[in-house]
């Protein structure tokens, strides 16, 4: 059984069909990418998978269980955790506090235990702080962990966004345009980070516009255009696919990864 199964997913806004009958699967341990020209419906698809939007038709199954229609926090607790485009973090908290809060999923004491300061809750608190510090170190943010997020340079914020998502202990991490707006050096580092995440046993599904990076790190690529899937396969196959080339026609050649 595949980890994530997307079946006939469709989303209409009024008369507009943003995502049209898209199906694909993501296997455990893969890095899978969804790509497509601007306005192809990538963002909508992303929100449908993370259940921030409910589909008009079709469904998403994770680990054999239906995800569509559940509240976003339930889906996150099942292990499907998304990041946000740009720099969505808890701005008034330090980097460490951001990640500590994100560990809420690891609660083993109930709300009243925490309130009463039970021993178990206190043990949790210590464990969470260690784990949060470790994640930040791993993502290269250890030296800024006590900075307030609002004061962090832009480049660190996306890493912090991923750290927050990692702290929620995902089994499937959904990355929303993780390389957008990065220069080649930054992209290389971010790609290493994504591969590192997979090395920790987390399956990655990313939605991305930057073809160059996608071609280099993906095991499997799904291409959508005008809301519909036009191709899927391994990077080499996608690079040679005529429908994909046609869809990207007019876009910068470099984006095809040549």
């Amino acid at each position, binding site marked *: 059984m595949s980890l994530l199964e997307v079946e006939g997913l469709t989303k209409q806004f009024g008369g507009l069909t943003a995502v049209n009958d898209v199906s694909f699967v993501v296997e455990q341990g893969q890095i899978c990418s969804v790509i497509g020209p601007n306005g192809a419906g990538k963002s909508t698809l992303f929100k449908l998978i*993370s259940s*921030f939007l409910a589909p008009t038709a079709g469904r998403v199954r994770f680990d054999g269980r239906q995800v569509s229609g559940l*509240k*976003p*926090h339930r889906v*996150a*607790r099942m*292990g499907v*955790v*998304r*990041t*946000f485009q740009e720099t*969505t*973090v*808890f*701005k*008034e*908290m330090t980097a460490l*506090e951001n990640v*500590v*809060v*994100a560990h*809420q*999923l690891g*609660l083993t004491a109930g*709300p009243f235990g*925490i*309130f009463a*300061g039970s021993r178990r*809750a*206190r043990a*949790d*608190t*210590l*464990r969470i*702080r*260690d*784990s949060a*510090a*470790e*994640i930040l*170190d791993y993502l290269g943010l250890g030296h800024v962990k006590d900075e307030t997020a609002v004061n962090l340079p832009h480049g660190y914020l996306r890493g912090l966004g991923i750290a*927050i*998502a*990692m*702290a*929620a*202990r*995902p*089994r499937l991490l959904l990355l929303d345009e993780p390389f957008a707006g990065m220069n080649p050096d930054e992209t290389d580092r971010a790609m290493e980070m994504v591969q590192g995440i997979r090395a*920790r*046993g*987390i399956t990655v599904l990313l939605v991305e516009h930057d073809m160059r990076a996608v071609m280099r790190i993906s095991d499997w690529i799904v291409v959508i255009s005008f809301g519909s899937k036009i191709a899927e396969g391994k990077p080499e196959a996608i690079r040679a696919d005529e429908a994909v080339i046609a869809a990207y026609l007019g876009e910068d050649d470099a984006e095809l990864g040549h």
Partner: protein
Amino acid sequence: MAQIDTSPPAVVQPPARSGAGRFLLVFAPLAALLLIGVPLFLGGMPYWLNVVTNACLLSFGSLGVWLTFSIGRVNIAQGAFALIGGYTVGLLTTALGLSFWVALPLAGLFAAVIGFVIGWPLLRLRGIYFAMVTLSLTEAVRLVFLNIGNLGGAGSVTNIPTPPGIASPMDFYLFAAVLLLVGYAGIWRLQESRIGGVFRSMRQNEELAASIGIDVALYRAMAFTICCFMGGIAGGAFASLQQNVYPQTYTVSDSINFMLYCFLGGLEFVLGPIVGTFALVIAFELLRAIQEYQALLYGILMIVVMLFLPNGLLSLRRLLGGRE
């Protein structure tokens, strides 16, 4: 499941212990002031003792509003829940003859239940919409009691008995002071716990909080319900202090005051609502000496604080170079 390994053991202080120290640093002087200082200095001044008793109860209600500020909602409904609490205590002690000590917790619970039921859907609103709708709620609840009165029901409750065991104004003051101290300790504990962290995260970004598995609707209802519980207790105790309750006992202005007390004291500090309430209630009484300009000066004072101490009176400490 991918388990984060915890190899490099970061040096992190046990937060519980350092937290207890910081707690006592504020709590001990506050308790000494309320339980020893006030009885000592104001014991022979019944008027001021009444003012301070009132301030304790208002502070207790403000602490609840502070909690809704911590989830990023400007709550102008606390007067409504104080009124509900007041009527609950009034009716239970007079019509049913229950003891105040049974009626008061019931008043809190009743306010909390109503708060939960109304709050769950309303908390979807944010910003000015939540502020406006809670303001409307205060007026709506007042009108409910007014109409019950007009239709021949109990529009007001008078002759509410003093709580058994409380024989003097000083006894009532001590009860109010202890209530406030318990409330302070509870809210402090709550905001230091991970629930407090969840509340703060929701204030900053509810979508992000949901994306990491936080049940945003449940937690914000929790904050609001606790707030309403405290409002109900404050209103119930006040009804017993006054020995009566009318639809006019809490109006929109009172709801606005609860909110202003928090803001003027400082939203970053649990002590904020207490400092804000005492400062404003006492300032208002002191300005009584200048008669007709009392209200005007009070208004000017408030604007000056907002302009020059936008983070509240307690931020003074930081401006003066004090420690965190």
